[in-house]
């Protein structure tokens, strides 16, 4: 199905995108729906974008649900391992 479910969030960082160029990422869109490329009926999709630079300023990732969970855990683990004085995170 087209799940329609879409979660958006502000982001601050960079991504390497079209033509191997880096660009500033300002927005993230996360949704579970049909992928364009991955060989699965549904995937967890993340778009890292800068809408101000147009639709092409996008790095797209399509992950199986299980691997998306693993990515979330890996991100949390990496952040937890970072000293607070470097990450600026208090929790």
């Amino acid at each position, binding site marked *: *199905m*087209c*799940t*329609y*479910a*879409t*979660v*958006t969030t502000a982001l601050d960082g960079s991504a390497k995108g079209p033509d191997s160029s880096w660009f500033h990422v300002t*927005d993230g*869109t996360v*949704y579970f*729906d*049909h992928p*364009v490329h991955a*060989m*699965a*009926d549904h995937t967890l999709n993340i*778009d890292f*974008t800068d*809408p101000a630079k*147009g*639709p*092409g300023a*996008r790095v*797209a990732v399509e992950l199986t649900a299980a691997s998306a969970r693993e990515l979330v855990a890996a991100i949390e683990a990496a952040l937890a391992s970072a000293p607070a004085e470097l990450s600026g995170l208090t929790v």
Partner: protein
Amino acid sequence: MIDSLSADTIQITGHDGDPIEAYISQPAGDKRRGGVVVIHHMPGYDRSTKEITRRFAELGYDAICPNLYWREAPGAAPDDAAATARAQGGVPDERLVGDVGGAAEWLRAQPACTGKVGVIGYCSGGRQSVLAACNLPLDAAVDCYGAFVVGTPPEGFPLKITNLVDQLPRLSCPLLGLFGNEDSHPSPEQVDELDGILTGLDKRHEFHRYDEAGHAFFSVDRPAYRVAAANDGWERITAFYETNLGG
């Protein structure tokens, strides 16, 4: 079947008089014919949808697929355009009706057009095909596994999708529905519900349901493709349009 056909990208007038892009395909010759509006799926105005558009020209119809994401992402790659439209909340129903209406008017203005126009949509476009047929004068509509024609979207959906139950009394034309029995959106129970509502409203409809097929079984480039269901589905579409758009 017609081997000699043309295809092009043009601008048409969509909702609110907005110029939008559309992909067209037409058979050669001046034989009188009907037209088909192809509504692309949520992943966008892509190669596979344009292939479908050309197939309708091969079947003898003028065919047009409006780019529903043109306003958000003119000239963008289809996947980038779909991502942009999704991030901005998707296509509002009112705008969809206006854009399909503009595409239908373009078809009716073609010199060989009989004036008969059908619509077809896949996935989210299946719901939008029914939506268009409830709000525009059309001659045939095809819904390929559209979710939320009936049923209730879950709480908290960022995209403002509603079901179409209150609009079904306005359905202006016969409806062909093609569904996979392994689909959950729409589920077999929801297909039953839609069937019952249309029967109660005395609306002409014809549903075909396929075992061992789920959502998106027409998608030849996806794992969901089911050749037996897709082949039979195309035969049903061909016959349905011949009955309602032919002559």
